[in-house]
Each structure stands twice: as structure tokens, then as C-alpha cells.
């Protein structure tokens, strides 16, 4: 499915590239990722993850924070977050800093 999906290390830091913006969509409700000629409507999970992407915290720290906030098993969150971020990198709406 994702032949060239990068393997993301826990120490990797990701960020939104110029031209990609996260914002609330008040008219329709929820949050969106705005990219060149594209709008991604985010589910609540994606929003929680992306709102923690600040170009400073590494993936491990983001996962720690999510595990604490949602009292969920860290390993499972790590797997989900990695898969989601790798997919966004492939779509070019996220980059490794």
C-alpha cells in the first residue's frame, strides 16, 4: 500500500511544511488540514495527534503525551501514530524536520 513509507523513529521530529495549515472549520465543525488544492477533514484522533505536532517535540514525546491524556497503552498509540504520520508524509502534508 505504502511502498515508500518511511520508518519513523521515536526520536524523529515532524512538522507541517509551508503551505500546509491546521485550523478549525467552524462552518462545518471539526478541524481540517489545508494543503495545496486539498482539504483533509480530520477525525478527532488525527486532530489530537496533529495538534501536538509543533516541530519541536519528537514522536516519542507526542506519544507519551497522548498515552497520559487518554490513559491508553503506549505501544498501541505509538503504532497508530507512526502509521498515521507516515501516511501524511507520503501525501506530502507533513515532513521530517
Amino acid at each position: 500500500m505504502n511502498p515508500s513509507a518511511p520508518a519513523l523513529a521515536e526520536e524523529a521530529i515532524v512538522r507541517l511544511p509551508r503551505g500546509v495549515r491546521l485550523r478549525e472549520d467552524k462552518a462545518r465543525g471539526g478541524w481540517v488540514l489545508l494543503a495545496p488544492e486539498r482539504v483533509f477533514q480530520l477525525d478527532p484522533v488525527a486532530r489530537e495527534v496533529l495538534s501536538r505536532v509543533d516541530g519541536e517535540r519528537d514522536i516519542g514525546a507526542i506519544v507519551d503525551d497522548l498515552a497520559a491524556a487518554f490513559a491508553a497503552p503506549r505501544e498501541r498509540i505509538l503504532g497508530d501514530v507512526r502509521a498515521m504520520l507516515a501516511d501524511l508524509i507520503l501525501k506530502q502534508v507533513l515532513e521530517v524536520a
Partner: protein
Amino acid sequence: MSHLDDSARPAPPLGMLAELTHRCPLQCPYCSNPLELTRKRDELDTATWQRVFAEAAELGVLQVHLSGGEPAARSDLEALVASCVEHGLYTNLITAGVNLSRARLDALAEAGLDHVQLSIQGATAEVNDRIANLPGAFEKKRAFAAEVTDAGLPLTLNSVIHRHNLHQLPELVELALDLGARRLEIAHAQYYGWALENRAALMPPREQVMEALALVEAARERLAGKLVIDAVVPDYYARLPKPCMNGWGRQSLNVTPAGRVLPCHAAETIPGLAFWNVREHGLGEIWYDSPAFNAYRGTAWMPDTCQSCERREIDWGGCRCQALALTGDASQMDPVCERSPYHDEVQTLAIVDASRDAEFRYRRFAREASGGKS
């Protein structure tokens, strides 16, 4: 089900195409502007555009595509971008890249421009400049692309393809990579307005189109993660219609240089539709209440064949302007669809046009009879 949908208030638009001007240094024979171009003296002023952007944001628009003509022909482009940014709108500049100085580009980046889409008419100077009818355009575009990436702005390359440049598809992909574009739009010419006038000069043969589709697919897979490739399909040879605009009055609107608000580029070709103007009406009022936006919204207007089709909310009946152009009736099913009685006729028409050798009729302002200056 569809009755309920039709009576409910439509969702707000996601995107707005702001056609700031019809002035343009290029004369591409497939231009999406209407044959009758709006002159400078009839363009909306800065304050009116700024009000429209405020209303667009209020209505729920997320992305604004600043287009033309050539948007850089407007000396207030920087102020217009700043106004969009102020209202939280994502700004996409659609430019030919031949008359925008580095200083202005930097000012636009500074104002908060999000993205630049640069048109390219061919992969070589010879082809590019002949189609744009502007010598030197290709080199200017290359230099402009370098300035865009140097300014840190994301770049999309957009190429309208047809019989005269379809053979350059592999070179166009290489050019996009070479120029540092992150996205490439391969748009088969859509036959409305100027392109319809020039159809016999532009229509590619069927085999060339099929080859191109396979080529784009292969390039997309090969370059995943490196270059996003989006394609606008060539529909005359298709079995199913394109979901034009993802449905009439469903996701986007188009404001012309003179302030008329349209559901799509070519909507003004449809007789009997009155298009409201932002000079007289609020954008929200136009979106929800104007007769033109409600004319082909949803599924209730559809002919029986579309009403009973399982794809009615996938294709949205295809394209109204195409139905008009090819059958004379905008409320017909899109004649590209294999269920349309006109389907075979459209295929024949494409094959015949592809074998003709017509000259370009370049896009130009018509001469004025009475010495008026545009």
C-alpha cells in the same frame, strides 16, 4: 432520500475561485475565461474584493484561488492576499509567472501567501511559447519557479495538455521535479469557451489519451512521497462523466472580474440563468438563495436516467455546460455518459476533431468599435 437532501439547506462552500482580472500576457487557445472578456474598467475594485473575502470566510470558505487572467496584472494583489490572510483564508496564487517581479513575490510571501501554482504550456521553450503565443515565456517561467522555491513557497506546476504537448508528458514530469515543484497538475483541456472554439486544433487522438493516462498512473506510483500528481481527465473519450465541480453549487463558487458569482467557469454560457453580482448581493445570499445556484443543485433537477442511477451522487449528473455545448440543453444528462443517447455522437466528434488540423484561434480581447481603452 434525495428529496430530503434537496430540501435541506446546502452545505457551505469549501473553495472560492477569485478571477481578479481577465488581463493576461498569455494567449493560450484553451483559456477557461469566456470568449467575451471583461475589461479593466469593469473590474471590481480593491475594497469590494476585500469585502467579498470577508464574506467568503464568514460563509465557510477555507481556500481562495487567486486567478485570472493573470492575477499579477492587478497592482493591488498584495493587499488582496493580505486581506485573505487576515480572514484566515488559505491563499493559492494561480499565475503564468511572466510578469511578477522578485520584489512583488517576496511581498506576497511576506503577506502570508500559502501556495503558488505556476502554469506551463509545454516542456520546451518552442512548444511553451507557441501555445502561449509569447516568445521568451518559457525562460521567464523557469526563472520564476526558482524564485518561488527560493522564497520558501510551495510550488505546483500546472499544465493543460492536448494534441500539441501530450507527447511531452514524461518531460513535464521531469521539469516539475527539476523546478522543485511538490505537486504537478496534468489537466486535459476541457472544451468550454476558448477551448471549445479551438477543439479541432486541440483534441488528441484516442490512443494518445490512453497512453497518457497510463503514463501518469505509472509516474504517480513511482514518485509517491516526492511529487503529488493530480490529473484532470479527458472526458470526451470516457464512458462515465466527470463529477463536474463535485456537483453544482455543492463545494465551490467562482467570482468573475466584474463580480458575478458562478457555480463554475463556463456557467454563463447557459441561457436563462441570472447570475447575481457581489455589488448587489452578499456572498452567502448568492450561495444559498440565488436561482442560478439552485438551478442544478442536488439531484431533483436530474433527468430520469440520472435519478435512477446508482452514481447520481458520485457523478452529480456530470457537467451542465457540456450538456449544453453538445446537446443544446443544459438539463440533459452529460452526453459523455454511456447511458446518454448522445454518447456515440460525442466519441465520433472527438475522433473527427482529432484528425483535423485547425489553426489556433488565440485568446484575445475583441477589438472595440469606439476607441475605448481597456
